[in-house]
């Protein structure tokens, strides 16, 4: 009927397929290599060697699903923040979420209590502060939001550094958490993270056309009948929520939220209606494979996945940036 729908359908279908393949194939990798036919056997009817069955269903499967969730959440939140701030430099951490979470996590590590819960509370606390500093007469000025985000982030970074300075033997734990990783994945985390992240991504997608209009300026968006202040508020809350959850279960994984939206935009164009779902899928695929590398490259030891993302993602990103094949999809 209308080529855009066909094109978008092809993009989504391709990415869904790639994600399905990635999630299954990546199950094979790890300190113990498990052949693909055995993986299918476990997934389909649960018949396999007990050890492999345990490895797959209790260790690798939750980890891969969590990688998908975290990758999606960060990439989608990044795209939303870049749209909100009309600034391609923005990322999910731009309003202080990561610093707040780091502060909460550091306290939890030193005090020996639940890290995800305190990290989440720290993230929410930071966003709450930033949001309330930036709001004036019921309106959010994005410039003020950006500045107060930077200020609050600096404040929490300082307090985190202070905690690290005094952390003693807990220091390496804090440092490790700050680099981000998925080694502590389990089904409980998946269960906690899955519903809010899925709902958050769907929620952000619903406002993607409004976000398009807002990229041309807030006032012009108002003239299209969009309740700009409301949309900003909703998108901020949803993006913060999914980022906060992602950070609380995996630490601070950098790069995904900044670069994935850019890479996807180069290929599918800037329209948020296709950009945001594509980011969700590409973010998931990228984090799955980055995590495969992280747990195999110097096996049996693991690398923090954030390091892998940057090491392998940046060259690829620079290639896309330089290859001038901008908007391949748009033109066809």
């Amino acid at each position: 009927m209308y080529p855009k729908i066909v094109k978008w359908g092809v993009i989504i279908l391709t990415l869904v397929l790639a994600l399905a393949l990635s999630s299954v194939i990546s199950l094979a990798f790890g300190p113990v290599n498990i052949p693909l036919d055995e993986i299918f056997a476990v997934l389909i009817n649960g018949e396999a060697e007990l050890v492999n069955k345990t490895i797959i269903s209790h260790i690798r499967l939750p980890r891969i699903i969590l990688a998908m969730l975290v990758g999606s959440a960060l990439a989608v939140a990044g795209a939303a923040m870049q749209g909100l701030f009309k600034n391609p430099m923005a990322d999910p951490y731009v309003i202080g979420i990561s610093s707040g979470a780091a502060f909460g996590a550091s306290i939890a590590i030193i005090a020996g209590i639940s890290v995800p819960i305190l990290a989440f509370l720290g993230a929410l606390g930071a966003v709450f502060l930033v949001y309330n500093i930036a709001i004036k007469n019921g309106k959010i000025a994005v410039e003020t939001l950006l500045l107060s985000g930077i200020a609050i982030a600096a404040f929490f970074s300082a307090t985190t550094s202070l905690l690290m300075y005094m952390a003693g033997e807990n220091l390496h734990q804090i440092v490790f958490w700050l680099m981000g990783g998925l080694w502590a994945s389990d089904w409980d985390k998946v269960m906690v993270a899955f519903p809010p992240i899925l709902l958050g991504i769907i929620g952000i997608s619903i406002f993607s056309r409004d976000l398009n209009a807002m990229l041309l300026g807030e006032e012009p968006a108002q003239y299209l009948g969009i309740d700009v202040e409301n949309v900003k508020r909703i998108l901020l809350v949803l993006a913060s929520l999914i980022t906060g959850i992602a950070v609380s279960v995996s630490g601070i994984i950098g790069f995904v939220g900044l670069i994935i939206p850019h890479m996807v935009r180069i290929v599918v164009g800037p329209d948020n209606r296709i950009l945001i779902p594509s980011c969700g899928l590409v973010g998931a695929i990228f984090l799955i494979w980055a995590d495969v590398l992280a747990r195999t490259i110097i096996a049996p030891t693991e690398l923090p996945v954030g390091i892998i993302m940057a090491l392998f993602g940046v060259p690829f990103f620079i290639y896309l940036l330089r290859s001038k094949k901008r908007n391949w999809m748009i033109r066809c």
Partner: protein
Amino acid sequence: MLDVKDIDVFYGDRKVLERICLSAESGLKGIIGPNGSGKTTLLKSISRVLKPKSGIILLNGKDVYELKAKDIAKDMTVVSQDTSTKFDFTVRDVVLMGRAPHLGRFEMEKREDMEIAEKAMKLTKTWHLADRTITEISGGEKQRVIIAKALAQEPKVLLLDEPTSHLDINYQIEILDLIKALSKELVVIAVFHDLNLAARYCDELILLSEGRVFASGKPDEVIISRNIEDVYDIEVMVKQDSGRLVIYPQKKVTKFKKGRIHVVCGGGTATLLMNSLVNHGYTVTAGVLNRNDSDWDTGKMLGIEVVEEKPFSTISEKKHLQNLEFIKQAEFVVMTDMPFGNGNLHNLEAVMEAINSGILVAVIEGSDIKERDFTGGKATDLYALIKAEGSTSVRNYLEIIEMLEKKCG
């Protein structure tokens, strides 16, 4: 269609619009006025960005602040100045965004929407740009794309904020021709900076000054030199040029506080003038006058500082220089229709000096200079020179007072 009734608009505590009324049923209506007079604010109030503290704005008889944003956007939209993006949407995508108010949240653009967008692009001559990105086209092209986006909204009322600012003259004319053509079918209200363009294109004008409507009506009723001079503080000449109004700016009207006025007079020609000036609160000086001259008497009586010369004596070089000093300190020099003899010829030279140093000079011409020239033509020659070099001629002292009061008011 659109009725603005008695709105007061504030920025914080500062009142920026006061009791504005405006009504538009059809055609192109221009809003003009100097910077800070409230033009853009008025547009923002109409387009729901800045809610008035009092008064009401009706679109088709309904209060715009009561309607849903989306419903308003189907009937009225704004082509604003600040549309820009770093993200490379294609021109087609941008124009299609104009369909947003007509689509449900989960609805994709349909063939019909594509056709409306195509029509808008063809009308604005941007169809050939459809697949280019908005970031790579020129300013004039972008402005036309933004208008195409507004047209895709299918509004009945179109508001434009300085639609041709930052554009070259050829694009200005092109865009205004387009807007003029659109105004046959929609109500168009546009803010204009350029008075000539406003006069040329608008069916009706509203002239704002300091947040109030100073004048409104047809262009030839609003753009008259008196209105423009009062509102813009500039002298203009408005001419009809083959049925078209053309505004020629002259020079800035210098407003001065009740300042120093120097009167060059003699023989009782300035009695009423000096009295009146002093009564109106001006600081008056006079000279050069011979002692016991009747103007000298008046001056002394009023307590005016006078450059004085001995009775019946020729003005000395020293007194002439002193007179020039007085003139330099004055903001305005008046020369009365005094008689000239060889004794006071220096006074004419002093007035000439005033003109040369840029001081405003007015000459009262109650009688012909020839009848009061007792120098054998020297005074007449100098007098002609003074008139030619840019002094203002008036008939009597009352006109002087009127002129000064206007400049100070």
